[in-house]
């Protein structure tokens, strides 16, 4: 382990790039989350009906229909062939996320993300144990179970409990007791399972992960040779397993983070002092030498 890994997270990046530089994508991401939420709130709050509906389905400027393809997939399995408007909307959403990375939805749009990020922040502050860490395949099991229940009951099953739409619909249309689901997710991430909801359970994220499996926009460990082993990227990444193959790959291997689990949040770019990471496209084939051994601090054998 590097001596630098003892420093607080992003300390070096802040020194090198300034606080703003070391939080660029985090700030942009929060701005994006607020932006997408505000779009939906302009109508009910200010009577400005640019965007109607919610994240499950919406109509923008009375012309652009958007539909959550995961909701529509459940409807399809429940035995219904949706009308053309919904299909068009789902096709647009699916095409966009297939290009820019499915889980971009998770980190840049989803209203639950700030909730689980807050839980994670508090989790670190309180120095809690990581708790239950489900196996990697868990989310796929949950995903399959949701689709199966939809098919068996003939309903859009996940929408009865989906905290993402419960929260979003609550904000745009009125909560009822939907906030209970949001608090439940917060507590789950805080005390039961660190990063548990978004990284291990949520079938919406799983769906978008699969959707973006071949996405064009990707984070690349382009200057991995400069990595100084501070481990900050691993510490901030919500899906740290995606970094390893790119960052620790050998000379011939791709520096692109190709896993569909990566949410393209860009936080690794922020916290890296030697600027190892950058946004790149899938077909980027610039030669990227591997990390050099000299970066490793040898532990003297006594």
């Amino acid at each position: 382990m590097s001596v630098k890994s003892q420093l607080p997270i992003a300390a070096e990046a802040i020194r090198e790039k300034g606080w703003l530089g070391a939080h660029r994508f985090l700030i942009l991401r929060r701005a994006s989350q607020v932006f997408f939420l505000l779009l939906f709130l302009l109508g009910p709050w200010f009577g400005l009906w640019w965007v109607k509906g919610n994240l499950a389905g919406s109509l923008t400027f009375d012309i652009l229909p958007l539909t959550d393809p995961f909701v529509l997939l459940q409807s399809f399995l429940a035995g219904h062939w949706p009308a053309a408007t919904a299909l068009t909307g789902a096709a647009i959403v699916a095409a966009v996320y297939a290009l820019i990375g499915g889980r971009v939805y998770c980190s840049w749009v989803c209203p639950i993300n700030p909730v689980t990020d807050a839980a994670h922040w508090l989790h670190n502050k309180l120095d809690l144990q990581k708790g239950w860490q489900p196996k990697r395949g868990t989310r796929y099991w949950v995903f399959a179970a949701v689709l199966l229940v939809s098919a068996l009951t003939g309903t859009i099953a996940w929408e009865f409990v989906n905290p993402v739409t419960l929260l979003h619909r609550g904000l745009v249309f009125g909560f009822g007791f939907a906030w209970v689901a949001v608090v439940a997710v917060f507590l789950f991430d805080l005390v039961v399972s660190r990063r548990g909801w978004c990284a291990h359970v949520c079938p919406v994220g799983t769906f978008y992960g699969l959707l973006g499996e071949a996405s064009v926009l990707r984070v690349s460990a382009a200057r991995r040779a400069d990595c100084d082993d501070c481990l900050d990227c691993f510490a901030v990444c919500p899906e740290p397993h995606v970094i390893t193959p790119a960052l620790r790959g050998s000379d011939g291997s791709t520096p692109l983070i190709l896993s569909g689990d990566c949410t393209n949040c860009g936080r690794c770019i922020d916290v890296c002092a030697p600027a190892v990471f950058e946004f790149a496209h899938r077909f980027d084939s610039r030669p990227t030498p591997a990390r050099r051994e000299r970066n490793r601090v040898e532990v003297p054998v006594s």
Partner: protein
Amino acid sequence: MSAQQTRPSRPNRRRVLTDAARAAGACAIVGLGLAKVAVDARALPAQALRPPGALPEADFLGTCIRCGLCVRDCPYDTLSLAELGVDGAATGTPFFVAREVPCEMCDDIPCVAACPTGALTAELDTIDDARMGTAVLVDEEHCLNALGLRCDVCYRVCPVIDKAITLEMRHNVRSGHHAIFMPTVHADACTGCGKCEKSCVLPEAAIKVLPVRLARGEAAEHYRLGWEEMERKGAPVVEGIIDLPDRLPGPSTDNLAAPGGYEPAFKLPGIKQ
């Protein structure tokens, strides 16, 4: 390489099977819980009415994506999305309560036009064909008209007046010399808009719009009403029927021509006596 060294690198079959069984078990539990919630959601409360053109409840829950576009395009703010734990309808689905805000039956049916999925089916092109529910005069003991007064409000406000609700005149037995104008719902014309329930003058409405499943009975499929069938056919439904002499009350009841007794109420057409 010895067998002892190779063994640990092979996937441990027992562990793989245990993990898979555990995951499947956990999913079965989660799935059963979710299925229970999904099935329970079908129990739509009686006062919650779906917007015009809504598919039958079981299909509706598989089609409606809870986007609220129908709610937004309703010009009278009749519709709202059910809130978790507050309204009884499935969370996020659109509904209205007739006694609060009834459906105004817009000619262009904007809620149906707004629906992206077809949960409110575009097959509904005339609002008079909507069947959001059926009005039922649930309480004849309190209905003012049923008591012999002339309230008539439900009848007057009905958008399908004289078809969906008529006033049927009958003798007022209590007073002996008045009429009762009984509000009578004809389900084949009632859209379930709820205007009658909304405007009932009683503190608790005596006429209520109920979901069709609650409001209506159903005749067995093989039932035929003899008098209707006879009218349609112009002859008895059963061929070759023998019209036996009627035995009627009165003096000399066995007399076939029954002189001095009662005449038969009607004669079967097509049969000569």
